[in-house]
Every structure is written in C-alpha cells, then in structure tokens.
C-alpha cells in the first residue's frame, strides 16, 4: 500500500512539472498540441494524487504501522472515523491533503475557465502547477508520508487527543483548503497579465473563486474558534496566536479583495489594486504555511513541528517576489480608464474598507513580528498577546463595521450629501435609542455601547433596504410581503447575499463584545456534594464517574445547575487524560441560550474525589456560532448564478 502511495507521489511530481513547463513552452513556441497535453495533465493529476491519498487512507484503516506516519498518528484503539482527522494531523499527511485539494481546485478552475480567458489560461495553469510541484517536491524529498520504519511497531502512538472533536473534522481541512485555494485567483490574475489580457477578463473567475475561498476560510476560522471554546477549557475563542493570525491575515486581505473587485466589475476601476491585493493575500497564505511548519514563534497549535521552515521561507520569498515583479513589469498596461469622481462615493467607501481591512492585517502582522524586532534591537524579550491586539485592532474593527453600515447607502460615483444624511437619520437614531436603553439598563462600558450602537446602524440600514425593496415589489408586482422579500433577494443576489453576510458580521460582533466585556469567571474546588454560586447560577457537584480505555482515562463530573433557586438541569463535564501524550482534553458542559452561555469545565480531578472546575458565564456568545451558517448562506446567495434571460421586469426589480 505504502509503495503504491510513494510511486504515485513521484509520478505526480513528474506530471506537474511537465504541465508547468509544457504550458510555458507551449505559449512560447505557440505549440497547440503541447498546450493541450499540459492542460489535460492537470486533470490526470487529480487521479494520480487521488490514488496516493487513497493508499494513505487505506494504510490507516489497515493500521499498517510499518509506515512511520501511520504509526505516529493512530493506534489500534482509535476509532476508524478518526482516520479522516489523522490523515491531516501531521506534517506529511497535511501536505498530501493540500496537494490533493490544489489538484482538484486547479482541475475545476481549468475546466470551467471561460473562453475569453484562453490567451491567459496556459500561464494560469503554469502558476498553479508551480505551487503544486513545490508541495509534491517537498513531500518527495523532505517529508514523505510513506516513509517506512525499519522495525514494525506493535501499536501506534495514537491520535492527538485534542483533535478528537467534531470541529476538528472541518476546521483544519477548511483552513488548509482555503489557504492553498488563494492560488487559483492569483494564478488567473498573474496569468492575465502574462497573457496580456489586461482589461477585466479575469474578473468573473476572480470574483467567484475569491468569494468561495473567502467563505471557506471564514468557516475554518469560526470552526477553530468554536473548537477552542469547547475543548481547550478556558472559555475563550481567539488567542491572537501566531498560527491563528497566520490564517486570519489572508482572510482579511481576501475580504478587501472581494469588495474592491466589485468596483472593477461595476466601473472598471482598481485594476492594478486588485492584482496587488490578491498577490498580498497569496503571500500571506504562504507566510501562514511557513509559520505553521517550523515557524520561529511558539504557539498553542504546535501542529506538525518540523524542520521544513527554511524551504517554506524560500517559497514565500519566491511566491512574493515573482508575482510582484510581473505586476510591476506590466504595470502600465493595467491603468483603468476611469477614475474617482468624488470622495463621497461608493468607490471611496470601498477604498476606505480596503484600508481598514489591510490596516487590521498589518497590525496583526506587526504584533507577530514585533517580538523579533525587539529582540534584535533591544535584546529584550517582549510578549505581544491579547491586550495589544484588542487595544489596537478593536477601534479599527469598530470603524470597519460602522463603514459596513454606511457604505451600502452611499451611491456610486457621486453622493448628494444631504440625501445621504437623510438616509442615515433612521439608522443613527435607532443606534442612539439603543444606547440610551442600554444605559438605562445599567450598562455603561464605553466600548460595548459604541459597538452595539454601530451594530444597530448596520442592521437598521439593511432592514430599511429590505422593507423598502419588498414594499416596492408588492406595489409593482402585487406579491405579498413574503414572496416579495424572497424575490427581492433573488433579483439582486450579490447585493443581498452581501447583506446577509454583513448581518452575520454584526452577530459575531455581538458575541465578541458580550463575552469579552460582560463575562463572569470563577475557579473553584468542589468536594462531593458541595455547591458554588456564580452570578445568579448555583452548581452542585453530585456525581463522579471514571471510565478507562486503552489509551485514556475519562473523568465525568456530574453537576446539578440551579438558577435563582430553581433547578434547571444536570450537566456532565468531562476531562480525558491521555498518559502517552501526557495531555488532557476537556469537554465543557455548556448550557447555551441566545442570552448567555453557562459554561463549566473541569480543570483537575483530585485524588480525594474533589474536582477543580472553572465556571463561566459568557453573554451572547451563541450569536457568534449561529453566524457561521449565515456566512455560508450569504455567500451561496451571492454566488448563485442568475439566469441569463433578462426581462424588463427583472430590470425593474434590480432598481429595488
């Protein structure tokens, strides 16, 4: 099995090199047959890498411990369902996963590329194949998943216990797929420069792939937060950890990209800027991969500790310098025909949006890099953690969300200021009313007040658009409100899909503000039968069970929960200790409502039967998790293809 995997890996390396060289030579020599075969090789690669992937999966299922990777990441006691997670749990396997995903995405991108991109397509293929060849090469020479052990062990080491969680089935693969997926729009962008197609031909594929990858990354990030919340045991959801930041930064830049590409689509502007941004996103993705594999800063992730850092650093340098060199070389071909007409316009709002998003990415990068700078210049070790990012990024986020509320109300090209102010009256009035109400309720922390006010501006603006649009449809077409609302969304999917995503962002903000500013935390040690009070909750430690498995000991703690004297329910929190990893994984007992989460996680099980628990009340964090599916739904709506036939009626509807 392992041999088949190894052989197909080498074969894939040869094929991807061929496709890369063939595409470039074919363009140079204008050899159509060569171009054709290089293109078809992209499809063949899916099959070949697929076989390699399948043989690794098969090795896991058969527990072939002769293969070093299988022995490191599984054992006889492991449930087969975790094979999926074990596959990408370590360095070598995750590289194979990335290569497989890239081959699939490349094939889809090539097969669905529109005809108008024909001159650029070979260049785009070459770029995708460069990246794929890199990953296959690293595997073949430095990190082969199919390396064998000289002596076959009787049992493997088992899978990292922190990974045996539902969220881990999706978080790493979504993030890794998202990060490598940035290759696709980058390939089309640079490919179009090389193919001298410097108008807006690549824009449609750029937009579609950009949105899809953006949603993938957003899901991965939120899932990671959710996983950290339920399994890491401290009730938080974002560390500003270097590895987290490494995935966050490309996503921020991609967010900027999917907005500014709207300006290119609508007005043919920002051509150069869009290519620059997608290059930056790609570089940051490579930087993320560098951080994740042998990066210089320690992190909670500690995933796949390896010595591959330097080769990824080299590829990061290559992947940054070459695209930007190409960009500057053909710079003057990219100039837009139109320019900004007014500082108060939708275009200007998008510029501001890009500035703020890139600003947050810069601050995040700066925080990751500053300890190294401090060490170099002052020989002093300085930590940059949560307080720094919260204080510096917080205001920028607030400004960004405020812009999110105002921007959609600003017309294209030039805004009539008094009309704009009129449109803003209701959202801002709503914000002030809400702030007043919150003050009356006794909430007087400045930050959350501003945040909730801004959230109101966004929600009110969107709500007003929906109500107005639905009413207009009702008047024009006689539909009832529900049908009008649905058809309204259907008639202008990018816009209303975007609104849904904006609402999801507000929901995330609600969760973050609530849990950060109004949370209550208490650490107590409870003996059997003892109670503790937190807020208006009371918990009573009633039962303890111990379960032994071959690789772990599970301690279950049963607690009765009361609120204001009334019994609510019995919750079970668990803590599993893995002796071979010397690590404990916890499952918090969480009672979640839209108002607040009541969260109990055991931190220590004492020999005398008492248990140390952390109790948390996290207000409104429910909204953050519910926002996840909403992000996806909004993206699906925005990407849903519209029927080509455009009638006069749908043109009228577009005005709504």
């Amino acid at each position, binding site marked *: 099995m392992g041999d088949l995997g190894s052989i197909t890996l080498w074969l894939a390396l040869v094929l991807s090199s061929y496709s890369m060289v063939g595409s470039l030579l074919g363009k140079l020599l204008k050899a159509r047959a060569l171009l054709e075969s290089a293109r078809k090789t992209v499809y063949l690669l899916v099959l070949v890498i697929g076989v390699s992937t399948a043989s690794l999966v098969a090795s896991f299922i058969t527990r072939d411990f002769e293969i070093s990777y299988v022995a490191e990441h599984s054992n006889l006691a492991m449930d087969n369902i975790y094979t999926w997670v074990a596959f990408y749990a370590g360095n070598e396997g995750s590289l194979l996963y990335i290569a497989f995903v890239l081959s699939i995405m490349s094939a889809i991108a090539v097969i669905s590329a529109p005809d108008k991109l024909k001159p650029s397509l070979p260049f785009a293929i070459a770029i995708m194949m460069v990246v794929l060849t890199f990953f296959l090469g690293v595997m073949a020479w430095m990190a082969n998943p199919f390396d064998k052990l000289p002596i076959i062990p009787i049992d493997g080491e088992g899978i990292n216990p922190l990974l045996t969680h539902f969220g881990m089935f999706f978080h790493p693969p979504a993030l890794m797929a998202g990060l490598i997926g940035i290759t696709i729009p980058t390939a089309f962008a640079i490919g179009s420069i090389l193919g001298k197609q410097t108008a807006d031909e690549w824009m449609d594929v750029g937009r579609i792939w950009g949105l899809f990858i953006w949603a993938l990354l957003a899901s991965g990030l939120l899932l990671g937060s959710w996983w950290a919340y339920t399994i890491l*045991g*401290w009730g*938080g959801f974002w*560390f500003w*950890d*270097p590895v987290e930041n490494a995935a966050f930064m490309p996503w921020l830049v991609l967010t900027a990209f999917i907005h500014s590409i709207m300006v290119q689509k609508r007005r043919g502007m920002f051509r150069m800027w869009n290519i620059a941004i997608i290059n930056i996103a790609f570089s940051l993705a490579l930087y993320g991969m560098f951080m994740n594999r042998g990066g210089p800063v*320690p*992190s*909670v992730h*500690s995933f796949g500790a390896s010595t591959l850092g330097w080769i990824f650093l080299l590829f990061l340098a290559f992947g940054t310098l070459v695209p930007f060199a190409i960009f500057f070389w053909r710079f003057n071909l990219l100039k837009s025909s*139109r*320019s*900004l*007409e007014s*500082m108060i316009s939708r275009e*200007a709002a998008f*510029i501001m949006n890009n*500035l703020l998003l*890139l*600003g947050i990415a*810069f*601050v995040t990068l*700066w*925080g990751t890099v*500053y*300890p190294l700078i*401090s060490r170099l*210049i*002052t020989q*002093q*070790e*300085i*930590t*940059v*953690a*949560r*307080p*720094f990012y919260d*204080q*510096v990024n917080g205001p*920028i986020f607030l400004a960004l969300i405020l812009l999110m509320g105002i921007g959609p109300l600003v017309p294209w090209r030039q805004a009539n200021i008094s009309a704009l102010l*009129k449109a803003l*009256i209701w959202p*801002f*009035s709503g914000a*002030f*009313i809400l*702030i*007043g109400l919150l*003050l*009356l309720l*006794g909430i*007087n922390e400045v930050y959350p007040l501003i945040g909730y006010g801004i959230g109101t501006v966004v929600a009110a603006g969107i709500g007003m658009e929906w109500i107005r649009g639905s009413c207009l449809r009702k008047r024009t077409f006689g539909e009832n409100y529900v049908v009008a609302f649905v058809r309204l969304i259907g008639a202008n999917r990018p816009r209303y899909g975007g609104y849904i995503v904006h609402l999801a962002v507000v929901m995330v903000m609600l969760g973050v503000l609530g849990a950060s500013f109004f949370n209550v*935390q208490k*650490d107590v040690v409870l003996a059997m039968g003892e109670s503790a009070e937190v807020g208006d909750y009371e918990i009573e430690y009633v039962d303890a069970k111990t379960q032994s498995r071959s690789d772990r000991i599970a301690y279950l703690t049963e607690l009765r929960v009361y609120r204001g004297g009334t019994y609510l329910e019995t919750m079970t929190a668990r803590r599993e200790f893995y002796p071979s990893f010397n690590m404990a994984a916890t499952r918090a007992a969480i009672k979640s409502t839209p108002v607040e989460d009541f969260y109990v996680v055991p*931190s*220590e099980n004492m020999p005398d039967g008492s248990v*140390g628990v*952390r109790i948390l009340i996290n207000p409104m964090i429910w909204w953050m998790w519910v926002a996840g599916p909403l992000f996806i739904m909004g993206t699906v709506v925005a990407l849903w293809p519209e029927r080509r036939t455009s009638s006069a009626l749908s043109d009228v509807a577009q005005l709504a």
Partner: protein
Amino acid sequence: MPSVLILIMGTVVVAYAQTPTSDSESAEQYDEAEAYNIDSMIMCPVCPAETIDQAQVPIARQMKQIVRDKLAAGESREAILEYFVERYGQNILAAPPKRGFNLVAWLLPVVVLIGSLVLAILALRSMKQKEVLRDMADDSELEPYLEVVDDILLNSTIEPATQDKASINPIQSGDNPNHG
C-alpha cells in the same frame, strides 16, 4: 427630523449622566473586575501563550492569588505589574509597556494607518485632476467635428417643431455660433 435627532441625543446624554459610577471598595476587599483585568495582562510563565486568567496550572493560580492579595493591601496596578516584571522579566507582561522603545510597538500602527489614509487621499486627488485635465483636452480634439455639425445644422431645412415653447435650438439660419 434633525430636531428629533437632537432630542434623542439629549436623552442619551442625560441617561448617561444618571448612571452610577462604580463604588470604591473597602480597604480589606478588592475589586474582582480590576483583579481580572490585571490577570489578563500577565502571561503564565510555563504555558505557551496564555495569560494567567486563561491558564489553569497551579502557578497561574498562585500568581492570581498574589494579585488579589496585593490589591486588597491597596497596591496599584502599576506596582503589581512591576512586582512580576522584577521577578520574571519584561516578557511576563502580555503587551509591550507603553514607554521607551516599546512605544514604537503602539505608535507605528497608528502612524502607518493615518499615513496610508493620507497617501490614499492624495493619490485619489491627483487621479481626479488628471481626469479633469483630460476632459478639457478632449474638447479641443472635438473642435473640427463640432464645426462640421454646426454646418449641417445651419444648412438644415427642418423647421422647429413648436413656436410657443422656448426654442431649444439656438441655431438659426445666418447665425454663426461661437464654440470656444
């Protein structure tokens, strides 16, 4: 409408003035919220990238207890943080202190953000000016064509449609309009 807005804002201001400020704690007790804030500024020395309010190891608990004891004794936030820095070094703090070289950590992002905003505005302004200049240049290019159009209109035999409305077409036979 503006008056309604002012009324609402006024209500907000009055409401804010009414909210009670947090009461001071007695000498024996400490403010848990302040203790929690200080906790989140101190890193756990043995955990990878966790503050002592996040970490659940014994040393983190001990450090939290020290924070609370010192608060109860009336020590200030700076004194408590300084206590830990003396024993563990600067990197026990979760963020760079806002003095000395480390001010760069805090100020650079602000400078970069404001700087890029200024740059963007300047770049956009210069793009706008180029567009205006180009429009003016366009007019002179069209000169010869405009003259041909004038000739055609001058020699046209089509009568204006109505006489009672103000005439839209100022060109009449014999006129030689001036296009400057």
